[in-house]
């Protein structure tokens, strides 16, 4: 936890993708899109949503889940809830 608290939001975001989808941090870049890798399918998506909610302490609605089609989009959506990235 001590390590996590010193992480930037950017690092936390990458870590959340890694933890939720089980991919390496090299895979997680802005261009990474939903359904383009086996790990980020609809099941992985819901795990990811819940991980992002926990890490950033936000509540995402159904529109957000549909809109979150890439890492870049995830940043835009989190920004909407006041998470600076």
């Amino acid at each position, binding site marked *: 936890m001590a390590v996590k608290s010193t992480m930037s939001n950017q690092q936390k975001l990458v870590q959340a993708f890694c933890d939720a989808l089980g991919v390496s941090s090299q895979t997680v870049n802005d261009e990474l899109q939903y*359904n383009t890798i086996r790990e980020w399918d*609809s099941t992985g998506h*819901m795990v990811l949503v*819940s991980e992002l909610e926990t890490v950033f302490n936000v509540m995402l*609605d*159904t529109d957000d*889940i549909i809109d979150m*089609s890439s890492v870049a989009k995830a940043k835009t959506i989190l920004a909407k809830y006041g998470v600076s990235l």
Partner: protein
Amino acid sequence: MTNPTNLTYCAEFDSLFQHQVFGLPALEKRAALMPVFNALHQHHLACSQTYARLTHGQPLSFRTPDELPYLAVRLFKHYSLSSVPDNEVFRVLQSSGTTSQSPAKVLLDKATSARQSKALVKIMQNFLGKQRLPMLIIDSPSVVKNKALSARAAGIQGMAFFGRQPVYALNEDMSLNSVAIEAFQRQYHAGPVLVFGFTFMVWEYFVRALQIAKQRLSMTNATLIHSGGWKTLVDKQVDNPSFKQKVSEVLGIERVHNFYGMAEQVGTVFVECEHGFLHAPSLAEILIRCPYTLKLQKMGQSGLVQVLSSIPSSYPGYSLLTEDLGRILGEDDCLCGRKGKYFEILGRLPKTELRGCSDTMGAG
């Protein structure tokens, strides 16, 4: 995919999607839908030889939904019809038909799959709101672990968009997971929750199982969404009113919405409103045809259900003649305020029994 018919379709679909999902009165709805259906017709003509062969001799565009060609839903139970190159198929949806032993195969590309999710969310938001709710799934967790995506698993995955921290109410052997159910109730008794399951599962493994165990729940903050057809329940003499009555009695749930939708047209679902009628959203249309002549029935007459969906571009299943019997009850004037046609499903066309094409058929 960059072929021109698909681009036209995508543009038309995007413009249809801008409209409120239950906000279009008849003429406006037709004006918004027909460009999409005509684009789908032309797209599948260009990309599916089977579709082109089956609709041979038909014009390139049509004025009204009833003029559009339709395929028998049975076709999808025997063939894998595709309008995309094999390398663009990213998901194959299997559904074991209730009458046929061979499972339906629906080939999805990413774009069609994404539209399915978008449409389902937009339609369901109208009944559930945008927020996600703690969700109790009336099924066993093993159903979604199977690699081949069954219609049941796909249905649960689709609805999972509306849930947070989903809890499965059943064990692997379909018995009640009382520990999970009690914990769910204890944790979320104060706020709204979502309960989702297949009609038969909700009835047999939840409502009936609780009854047999002489238990009652009081999930007064819950909304129950269920789907999957009434066939097995009709055999048990359970219709929608008696289903709802028992759900209220045993589960304490008053807000109950059934929905009707084909595994071949995932996304565009027809949801039961507060007054008990199934509603056609702006993204889909329903028509009723005489089982003999296949002519369009008048409003109120029962017949075969034809469903039209604005979604499928990877397989030519946007216009399907089902084997279900139904009846349109009205258009644009339901007391719930939603525009569009509202209707009821009356069961399935009896296989051997071919009766006259009268307005009383199947209506009891």
